[in-house]
């Protein structure tokens, strides 16, 4: 996935639309609610802009767990919502019988043991457990990551990281412009904000 400017623009549009839909600009939301609404629209926008990937579907699934967000989500995504909530790839877990699994593991482990020197075994096992632990952590980080195996997890992580970066850039952009706008036309708000006295970008 390339971080094209069109992707960023799409994300930006969607996010701002999300802000409108969730009525972020109204004054009767608490700070916490507003922050959650902003984050929600940002996440939905990034998933929308990316299209059908595993992590985007996982993200939408997570977002729609909250019932009242669901309507906003539907309005935001439009017909994409159905596309995204359908699982795109087979996320089944292969049914494995324990007996066969145990036998296979024993065989594979004895085969590996035979091929290696004794002192290497400990190192390799250690390395594997370390890697496994980290993969588990990564699975928790990436949305929808639990049902993915090693390869696709790395793929999805790559994709997700790039989209996150775009998200951060977009949000920072919005922040900067909103601050610049506020500076140009100061309105009295509940918070006493004294804008820095320099011309922005």
């Amino acid at each position, binding site marked *: 996935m390339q971080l094209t400017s069109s992707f960023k623009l799409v994300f930006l*549009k969607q996010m701002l639309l999300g802000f409108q839909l969730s009525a972020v600009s109204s004054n009767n939301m608490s700070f*916490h609610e507003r922050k959650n609404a902003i984050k929600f629209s940002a996440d939905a926008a990034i998933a929308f802009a990316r299209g059908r990937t595993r992590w985007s579907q996982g993200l939408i699934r997570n977002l729609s767990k909250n019932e009242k967000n669901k309507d906003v989500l539907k309005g935001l995504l439009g017909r994409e919502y159905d596309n995204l909530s359908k699982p795109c790839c087979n996320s089944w877990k292969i049914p494995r019988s324990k007996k066969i699994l145990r036998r296979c593991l024993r065989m594979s482990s004895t085969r590996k043991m035979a091929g290696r020197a004794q002192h290497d075994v400990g190192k390799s096992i250690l390395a594997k457990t370390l890697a496994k632990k980290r993969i588990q952590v990564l699975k928790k980080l990436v949305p929808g990551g639990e049902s993915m195996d090693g390869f696709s997890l790395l793929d999805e992580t*790559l*994709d997700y*990281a790039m989209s996150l970066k775009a998200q951060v850039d977009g949000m*920072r952009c919005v922040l*900067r412009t909103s601050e610049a*706008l506020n500076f140009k036309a100061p309105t009295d708000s509940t918070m006493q904000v004294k804008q820095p006295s*320099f011309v922005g970008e």
Partner: protein
Amino acid sequence: MQCLQSPVSRRFSSKWQQQGQEQPSRHSYSADLCVQGGLPDIPQRSLAAAPNFEETSVAVLSDSSLRKRKAETSLKSKQDLGKVESNCKRVKQERGGGAKPESKQQNSRKEASGDSSKTDYIHVRVRRGQATDSHSLAERVRRERISQRMKCLQELVPGCSKITGKAGMLDEIINYVQSLQRQVEFLSMKLAAVSPMEDIDLLSREAMTQLVQRNLPSRSSSMGISSELMDQPFLHFDSLQPHPCSGLNMYMDSPDLVPDGSSFGSSPNSLYRVEFQLGRGTASFPFQSLQGKYSYPICASGMDCDAWFYVPNKQNNKIEQFLLHGSSGPQIRN
């Protein structure tokens, strides 16, 4: 996912082409892990070389693939192999057919594997002297795939070119993703703190022009005054920490990871300390504007974003401890 697929497929195809050129057919033999029904891709030359070998290897593979599928859960390719075991038998019958150029198939297969379709095959070319054991073949394929992806990730994550080894790389990736997520949290908090966006259209227009401008090479001009302020965080931070932290300096250099100078004041010390304290749920903390006269409180109750800038894992504890113990709490600078 062009970034991933094209380099992978390119690398693979070039690799196979190289191997094809280096080793004449007499010395090399190919072991197919499986063959799609209807597409006999065992080239004629290797057939002539060692027909018996291939038969046995294919037979072995078809048997062991079932076992392997159950044994190695993380090997997705093997799952697909197990499904089309029956097609492997067709290979023996259809060997007489024409041979497709291997590189093309390699590409198409790599793309197919990206879609995780049912026809996911890996065509492996084994060099002379290497084991043809199905297990080691699959292992090698798996390792190569992982290394390909690791390389791509290395390019993406800043500062990972020095790190080798899976565990370290995974560490860095985890760190990076976590820091990005925290940044999102933090930015959403900041956006919420900004007074309500009344004119969404104007905002969107401005934001988009901003975005377009940023993509142009005149990035330094768009940063504007904030570049001056960026120097200050470095100075302050250097004075803060006694430990040399090359990773941190590197991250601080990239403007993406440093907070906008426009939003934060000239007291990044308090900012960083405050950032670490956020996780503890402090009630409020002041941000300083440039003049240092006014500050606005942000209610931090219930917020759980910790330090958001990306710090390499090893240095994290030292800096954290130093900052936490070195300060009594968020301080207001005048």
